[in-house]
């Protein structure tokens, strides 16, 4: 993804003396003096403006410095958060998860006992929080807090530490019903001192999603809706206003440290890192995709998972890291 350093120079186009040449294939007017690369980047800037909803291209050009470079910036219209796994970041527009907008995350089973989607959201939050350091005040949540709104009471704070997320940064809101959850999310999205707002919802109507998306864009706070319901939905849902929509399914983890000589015994086969099949169902500005990712606690980032079958690493040519392991098995 090229950086947008050229765009501000070429927009708006300077008044020209020579009559513009018309391209025969596209029918577009082409300024003979402009370099083709500059045109391309100008167009890209324009497209980005349209996507992000900014009225003037200058705004996007001002914020474009942070695009692609991977830094988290509140002033930029569409800053993004790199996820750590190169394949994902390359796929997502802007080189990472766009910030200041709404993301939907659902489990493979949208039922309430699906902790994989929760884990994925927490992993994203952990990266978000790592990018925005907490206030120096001891213990008090002042800035950089995460608002977590849920009608349930089963989020367990000590488990959050496994993702490197400080539970002290969480403000937990128990809302009675769906309406209250959405209302609280919208209120939270108006507070620019939050890092993110997470709401556990059953369904998200198109109108409600649109409201959340608008509120998120106005304040620059990133919103996540986590689909949880007691019974799986009967009918397919209309596409919502969210920028991305993820479906997270659990995956068998790569073996951590196996005790020697006990590979057949499951007691010796320890649990590996949290691993998910992350499916990008839809994303504005990018094609759907599917990855097998795992959360690396040591680096605090996502990594592509090593495919496993029956607890053993399966050879895969694309994965260069584990090629040695596969060869050893083959030999």
């Amino acid at each position, binding site marked *: 993804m090229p950086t947008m350093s050229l765009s501000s120079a070429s927009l708006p186009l300077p008044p020209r003396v020579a009559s513009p040449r018309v391209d025969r294939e596209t029918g577009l007017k082409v300024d003979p003096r402009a370099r083709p690369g500059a045109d391309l980047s100008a167009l890209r800037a324009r497209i980005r403006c349209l996507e992000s909803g900014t009225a003037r291209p200058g705004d996007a050009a001002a914020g474009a410095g942070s695009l692609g470079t991977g830094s988290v910036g509140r002033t930029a219209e569409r800053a993004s958060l790199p996820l750590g796994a190169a394949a994902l970041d390359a796929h997502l527009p802007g080189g990472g998860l766009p910030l200041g907008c709404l993301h939907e995350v659902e489990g493979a089973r949208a039922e309430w006992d699906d902790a*994989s989607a929760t884990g994925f959201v927490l992993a994203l939050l952990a990266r978000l929080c790592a990018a925005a350091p907490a206030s120096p005040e001891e213990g008090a949540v*002042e800035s950089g807090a995460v608002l977590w709104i849920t009608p349930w009471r089963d989020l367990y704070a000590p488990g959050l*530490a496994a993702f490197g997320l400080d539970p002290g940064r*969480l403000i937990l809101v128990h809302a009675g019903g769906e309406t209250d959850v959405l209302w609280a999310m919208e209120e939270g999205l108006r507070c*620019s001192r939050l890092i993110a707002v997470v709401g556990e919802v059953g369904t998200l109507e198109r109108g409600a999603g649109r409201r959340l998306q608008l509120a998120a864009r106005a304040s620059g706070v990133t919103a996540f809706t986590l689909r949880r319901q007691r019974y799986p939905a009967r009918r397919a849902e209309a596409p919502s206003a969210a920028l991305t929509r993820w479906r997270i399914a659990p995956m*068998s983890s790569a073996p951590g440290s196996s005790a020697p000589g006990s590979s057949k015994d499951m007691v010796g086969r320890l649990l590996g890192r949290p691993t998910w099949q992350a499916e990008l169902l839809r994303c504005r500005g990018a094609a759907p995709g599917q990855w097998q990712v795992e959360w690396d606690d040591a680096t605090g980032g996502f990594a592509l998972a090593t495919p496993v079958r029956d607890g053993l690493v399966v050879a895969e040519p694309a994965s260069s890291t584990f090629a040695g392991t596969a060869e050893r098995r083959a030999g």
Partner: protein
Amino acid sequence: MAERGGLAPGMPLADARALLPGLRTAAYDPSGDAAALTRLADWCGRYSPWAAVDGCGCDIGGSAGILLDVTGCAHLFGGEAALLSDLIGRLQRLGFTARAALAETAGAAWAVARYAVPADDSADPRLTVLPPGATRAALAPLPPAALRLAPATCEVLARFGLRTVGDLFDLPPAALAPRFGPHLARRLAAALGGEAESISPRQPVPSFLVRQVFAEPIAAAEDIARGLDGLLPRLCRTLETAQQGARRLELALYRVDGTVRRLFLGASRPTRDPAHLRRLFGTHLEAIDPGFGIEVMTLSAPVADALSALQLTLSGAGREAGTGAGRGSAAADVIGDLPALIDRLGSRLGLENVRALAPRESHIPERAVAAVPALVPHPAWSLSAAAGPVRPLRLLPRPEPVEAVALLPDHPPARFRWRRLLHRIVRAEGPERIEPEWWIDAPAVGPELCAARDYFRLEAEDGRRYWLYRTAGQADGGRWFLHGLFA
């Protein structure tokens, strides 16, 4: 009317009926009377917050009443006489027959209201205002019972020939106490102002209170909102003068029918920002039933904390501590501050539902987290990965029993059935023994916290991860429970 007919308290009903054939009777309902009196005392809060039910009247033969301390309130109603006539008039419209007296002391007012024979030239026989200094003269012709004495004491006094309060004035106080007990001397001193007597108000009296009287009763929600808009800046100015911020707000609406509707609000931090407080009231105002109309609104801050003034910047954009909701900015509905957000969430969902999570020193998983009020500093979490064993993301509110099959004793289960679904385990970690906390009281926490548990982290075929435990040290080998879910 009844007394003029010759009736007296304590008379048998048959005798009363004989004297007055058309007598209307009602069953004696002491609790109902008391409740009505209490409501009436609340209603009197419109005149003064120092309103108390005068209970002693019922015991000693007098009729029940309400005591009001109107010090400094009379000018709001155009003088003491105007206040009394307003009070009597409104009570009559509510269906009460009442007499009112205003005097320097509570004892004198009590006596005059019940026993004074109104002068012929007074405009309204139901109300008496004793000017300052006239207390002694007004009390002198009254019977001793007017001093709030027990009937037995009055009887003794009558036997001694002391038929008026004025007779008692002439006796030396030292002679009264040995003969009639210390009670009489105290009551006499209290009525004359020689001994201080305070009214303990029914409702706690707030230090910060503003009120608004409406010329006509209002009922529309917009009118109530407008009245509140007028009250809030006044209260905030009062708070500012005292360098205080409100932690709790009480909006009392006095309805035409004599009842009071109250609305309570809490703030997570002391605040005196009218715009913020107004937003907290939010939709609560519409939920108020105004009945036939609201005559008086009072707004008070029963709980307030110190909040020192802060210097605003020249543009007025500086924020006051604990407030600062997007004032003057283009994005008017962007909340600038976290406390403001928490108050708004709390005002709709309840502040007890907006919580931060703090660690608690306990090994038992369900006791390891404490929900503390948000924005209050709490102990920090230890975040290093080596701090402890991995804990699940979701902890079931209550461990759910599962059918599990382990290949060997003390081994993790090979499969288990939870909610009719069979899960085959391919990986396991454990056990992790968690002992009960012997220092906590067993009956108080329930039996499930009193057994040692062996926890296992399990991964099923499909990759889902579970946290199961088996109760340890039991004769039947222990039972299995599912307690949590991992990512």
